[in-house]
């Protein structure tokens, strides 16, 4: 299990990464390290490539037609785009949470258990503790423990998003990618998810894409600022928001760009 104390170790290494959607050059020579047990935020105006970059980290772009990727994305030093990489196994190690909570029309229990089932855990004896532990880690257990069999869709949107994070946790990931995890949530649920991210970082490496610059400022340790497919600046979040080096970063964080 990855615990804190490894903060200077890169969990993911990205080197000269390019991505093309057909003729569109969407990511241009991205080079950056994602630190282990840290929260890294990807920020930038719409269309800058931040979600595309996030999706490169567990090869979610593979399912899109006409996508071409070159360069290196290494997880613990191993190229995830190398031939022979089992993509299902990769996505177990690098889980993803989406913008709108994707709760399945199943019970709360099944929403979490189904993730473990996909990875071969089938008996109740093994599933029960996985479901309980996952719900605990996202702070949902006490709220739902007495209604595990009721439909997940009855939960509030914020709770559904917690449930989706629990589902990712149930697969035993090392990295959790969050793509605008709070954009559908109210402010109180948003702060709850941000607190949850802080708890998660003790065990996992967290990468979050956000349109909400203030969220990146509040809830991340490192910030990557992107513009038009390029990485403009990367640094500790405190530094990016107090004295960024690049004038384009300055314009963005002060609300004068995008």
């Amino acid at each position, binding site marked *: 299990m990855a615990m804190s104390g490894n903060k200077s170790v890169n969990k993911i290494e990205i080197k000269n990464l390019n991505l093309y959607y057909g003729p569109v050059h969407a990511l241009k020579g991205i080079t950056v390290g994602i630190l282990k047990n840290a929260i890294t935020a990807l920020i930038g105006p719409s269309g800058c490539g931040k979600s595309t970059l996030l999706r490169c980290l567990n090869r979610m772009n593979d399912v899109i037609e006409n996508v071409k990727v070159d360069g290196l994305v290494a997880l613990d030093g191993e190229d995830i785009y190398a031939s022979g990489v089992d993509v299902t196994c990769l996505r177990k190690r690098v889980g993803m949470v989406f913008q709108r909570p994707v709760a399945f029309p199943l019970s709360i229990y099944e929403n979490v258990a189904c993730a473990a089932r996909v990875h071969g855990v089938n008996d109740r004896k093994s599933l029960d503790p996985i479901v309980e532990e996952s719900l605990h880690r996202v702070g949902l257990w006490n709220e739902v423990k007495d209604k595990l069999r009721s439909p997940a869709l009855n939960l509030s949107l914020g709770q559904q998003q917690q449930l989706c994070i629990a589902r990712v946790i149930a697969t035993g990931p090392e990295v959790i990618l969050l793509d605008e995890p709070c954009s559908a949530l109210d402010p*109180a649920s948003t*702060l*709850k998810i941000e*607190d949850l991210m802080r708890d998660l970082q003790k065990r996992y490496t967290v990468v979050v894409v956000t349109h909400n610059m203030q969220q990146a*400022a*509040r*809830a991340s340790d490192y910030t990557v600022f992107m513009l038009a497919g390029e990485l403009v600046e990367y640094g500790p979040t*405190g530094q990016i928001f*107090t004295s960024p080096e690049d004038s384009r970063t300055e314009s963005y964080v002060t609300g004068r760009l995008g």
Partner: protein
Amino acid sequence: MLTPRKRFDAELAKLDKSLLHMGTIAEEMLSKALTALANRDVGLADETIGMDDQVDALNLEIETTCIRLIATQQPAARDLRVIVAAIKICADVERVADYVVDIAKTAKRLADRPLFKPLIDIPRLQSLVSQMLHETLEAFVSRDLTLVHKMINDDDQVDNLYRSLYEELVEFMKKDPQVVDQAVQLLLISRYLERIADHITNIGERVFYVETGELKELHT
């Protein structure tokens, strides 16, 4: 529903702790500087001067933290008042420590021969100022504004004592030019103590602001 902001709350608590730590060092420095003066102890005066580096480092650390919290945490209401007050308070504590260094340096200059008169009012002044500093730090921690008001009253006593010391020392100088050098040094020390008390009242005003949201001069 109360949503905690655990990380931010922890940072605010740490800010409180750092300010208190800084104030406590200044308090200790003040006591040491006056002991150095009374005992003509050059070693202790140097030790006091050396402690200023800790205060300066804390000052920069606290200010940097405050700037980062403002930039990243969008503080509002009490959180904002605490952070803005912390920036001002650490600057005042830093000035207090600088005056203590001045006192310690003066104590060193006075250490070469016995004083022309026994120290009576300066230790009283120091004791009042130390008490004020202690009350203010205590008020900062306990959020107890009665301590702030008490401290403001103490400052009046400091001003009165300073004025009478001034008159007394001037009298000595008029009578005997031989004592002018020492008397001026003692007058400077009294002045430093009086200035320290003013910075402490500033701190008290910031504590008042954090608790009430009202920015005002408490000293009338």
